[in-house]
């Protein structure tokens, strides 16, 4: 008898918190709102820990049925939850990092007038994300999928009075919808061919199917369409354009949604559907190519950006590309591993960046930062840990996960590996560039440099700088000095920093002496179920997920060494250009001229989309749908029928002339007609 762990509590608790804060939050004091938000999110986290503790005694996959939903003929979809190793990992990451960011936000948003609204949306997001992660069928997952898109829209456009924020929110939602369309078509195909959307049902039906070699089959189509959905949600080419704009939202939002959790939904979904992809090599290749190209592409843009959050945004797109590269070579547990470590260090990077912005009173341009490591010591040290982690230096978390991906990619194609290594070099370069520009050298900004002691409670700044004009340099006067953040913001930084350091130790590969515990933990989920004899054409690693060939250890070590070398090269180059010879970047930029301009302007992709897609749609909509149809047909029908009625009555009213004789004439006419009719009837 499977024990009932009441999994439904995990998503529902934050929903209750969202409802309370949403309906009555404005009447509560700040403290009450905070306690409500923390309590419900924390309760979800605690329950997730409890579930984790009970996990070893469960048989997987553990499905819990909550309520009936759609029963239409033979098609059934119910509210039920699914727990296996994969969803447990995601669960812990989402609730854990989410909870930390809730704590952080209490400090960061303390002076914002929309405080209760913020926590309402944040809890709402948690509800949807947890629904997505715990779903036991594609439809419930889609609900969570759409819901996190909604929450993202609400939170990106949180400062909705600002035009750019409102537009960014719209852009995110619309681009997401394009991806969702692909997702939906995939769902329809699944319903048509398998009659069910339950994971168990679909995967069972698929397990008997063989590998589609020629790529013209159902599973290839489903796989590619699911990838389209993932491109939208996880910001891959060509639907990544919303993520950099999403930086308009408050920094905790960027940390939670656009680094740690929502954007990883695509990776989770692809991993969950691994059985489909394993049987569709073409779809798998599409995933790998998109991931690799995105990783490289975004990294090149990140190199030239001057806004600290934009650098991190492109970095996120790039790292997501790594995760999809891993999925594309069927190294799904490596992708999840990197997802987890990325949540730690990218979340930390964003939160620390937020701390910097907060300390500088709203400044986000790195050209106006510098030399901040004495003023913001805690922020500096935690951000350092994160930077080394993302660059892939051992023994930090990012090293193990990124190397796992690169190693598995090299097994399939050296092209993937080569691009991956070059991207790692770029990653290291732009992250250390950020690090040096922010914390080293001379301070290039305009705020006062007097040191203040660390505050012990959220400070009441006279103006909250990072509320509405996050991009305007600190001209608010306010308190005037650069200061470290309060503990409520620092504690999550510290916890995440610790995780960034030790988080990778669950996945130490065999070549370095570890037991790769995470891979083994996830093995029951990802073990290949391809019937024997079918897998001949696939590279060795795609046959069985969990096993690593022992003979490749030395080769793996060589590759590892190369990637660490690339990271070191990036660090050295950043030091050279931004500490040693600070004039050099400017000269290089001018030397590169137009190419540099293009990179700085994100290769004009947004402009291209505007011309190719947006403008024709708007024009078509205006001219055809609005003026042509709505005004020309519908309005015309209504107006013209009214006009027609008026004209008719205008004509008919002449009958009522007041002239008695014409009345009499009409009467006579009518009477005559009746008589004629009667005669005619009588004659017949």
């Amino acid at each position, binding site marked *: 008898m499977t024990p009932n762990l009441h999994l439904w509590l995990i998503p529902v608790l934050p929903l209750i918190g969202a409802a309370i804060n949403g309906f009555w939050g404005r009447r509560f004091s700040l403290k009450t709102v905070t306690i409500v938000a923390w309590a419900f999110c924390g309760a979800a986290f605690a329950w997730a820990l409890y579930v984790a503790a009970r996990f070893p005694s469960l048989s997987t996959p553990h499905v819990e049925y909550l309520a009936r939903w759609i029963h239409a003929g033979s098609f059934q979809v119910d509210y039920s939850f699914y727990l296996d190793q994969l969803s447990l990992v995601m669960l812990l990451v989402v609730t854990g990092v989410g909870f930390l960011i809730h704590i952080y936000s209490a400090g960061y948003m303390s002076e914002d007038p929309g405080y209760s609204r913020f926590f309402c949306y944040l809890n709402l997001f948690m509800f949807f994300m947890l629904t997505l992660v715990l779903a036991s069928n594609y439809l419930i997952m889609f609900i969570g999928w759409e819901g996190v898109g909604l929450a993202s829209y609400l939170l990106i456009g949180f400062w909705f009075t600002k035009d750019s924020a409102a537009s960014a929110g719209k852009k995110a939602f619309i681009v997401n919808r394009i991806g969702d369309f692909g997702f939906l078509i995939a769902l329809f195909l699944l319903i048509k061919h398998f009659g069910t959307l339950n994971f168990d049902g679909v995967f069972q039906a698929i397990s008997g199917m063989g590998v589609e070699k020629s790529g013209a089959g159902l599973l290839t189509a489903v796989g590619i369409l699911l990838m389209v959905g993932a491109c939208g949600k996880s910001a891959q080419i060509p639907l990544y354009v919303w993520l950099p704009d999403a930086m308009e939202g408050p920094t905790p939002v960027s940390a939670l949604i656009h680094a740690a959790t929502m954007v990883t939904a695509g990776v989770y979904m692809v991993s969950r559907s691994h059985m489909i992809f394993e049987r569709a090599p073409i779809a798998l290749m599409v995933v790998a190519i998109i991931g690799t190209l995105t990783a490289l592409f975004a990294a090149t843009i990140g190199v030239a950006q001057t806004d600290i959050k934009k650098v991190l945004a492109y970095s996120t797109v790039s790292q997501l590309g790594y995760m999809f590269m891993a999925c594309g070579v069927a190294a799904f547990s490596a992708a999840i591993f990197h997802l987890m470590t990325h949540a730690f260090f990218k979340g930390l990077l964003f939160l620390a960046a937020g701390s910097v912005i907060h300390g500088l009173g709203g400044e986000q341009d790195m050209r106006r930062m510098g030399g901040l490591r004495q003023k913001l010591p805690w922020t500096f040290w935690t951000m350092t840990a994160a930077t080394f982690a993302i660059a892939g230096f051992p023994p930090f978390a990012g090293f193990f996960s990124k190397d796992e991906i690169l190693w598995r990619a090299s097994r399939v194609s050296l092209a993937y590996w080569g691009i991956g290594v070059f991207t790692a070099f770029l990653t290291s370069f732009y992250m250390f560039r950020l690090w040096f520009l922010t914390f080293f050298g001379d301070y290039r900004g305009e705020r006062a440099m007097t040191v203040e002691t660390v505050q012990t409670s959220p400070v009441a700044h006279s103006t909250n700088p990072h509320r509405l004009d996050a991009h305007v340099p600190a001209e608010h006067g306010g308190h005037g000095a650069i200061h470290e953040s309060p503990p409520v913001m620092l504690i999550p930084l510290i916890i995440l920093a610790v995780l960034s350091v030790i988080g990778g130790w669950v996945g130490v590969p065999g070549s370095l002496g570890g037991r790769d515990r995470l891979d083994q933990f996830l093995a029951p989920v990802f073990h290949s179920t391809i019937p024997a004899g079918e897998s001949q054409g696939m590279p060795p690693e795609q046959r069985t997920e969990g096993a690593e060939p022992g003979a490749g250890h030395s080769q793996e070590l060589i590759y590892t060494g190369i990637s660490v070398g690339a990271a070191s090269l990036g660090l050295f180059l950043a030091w050279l250009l931004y500490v040693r010879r600070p004039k050099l970047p400017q000269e290089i930029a001018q030397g590169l001229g137009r190419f540099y301009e293009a990179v700085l302007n994100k290769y004009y992709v947004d402009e291209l989309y505007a011309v190719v897609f947006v403008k024709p749609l708007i024009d078509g909509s205006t001219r055809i749908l609005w003026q042509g149809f709505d005004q020309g047909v519908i309005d015309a029908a209504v107006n013209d029928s009214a006009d027609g009625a008026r004209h008719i009555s205008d004509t008919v*009213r002449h009958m*009522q*002339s*007041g*002239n*008695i*004789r014409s009345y*009499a*004439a009409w009467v*006579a006419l009518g009477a005559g007609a009746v008589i004629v009719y009667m005669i005619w009837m009588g004659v017949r």
Partner: protein
Amino acid sequence: MVPLSYYLILSGILFSCGVVGFLIKRNLITIFMCIELMLNGVNLSFVAFAAHWHALSGQVFVFFVMVVAAAETAVGLAIIIAVFRTRETLNVDQVNLLKL
């Protein structure tokens, strides 16, 4: 022996004259007289049928028609007098206040 239809045709002619007169005459009193003409035509029809079917009810009905015609004439002429007092004209085209 006169066929019944002859009586009816005569009645029809009188009635038609009444209608035509009603339509083309402009004096209120003349129009009223045309109404009387119509009534007379109908009376003839009634009596003719009564004779044809040997039913005296036809003649009784004529009696009643005459009574009503008398009452109607009295009231109608009173109205015409009242209208003449306010309008100073008996031209029916100028009594046209009931219009849009």
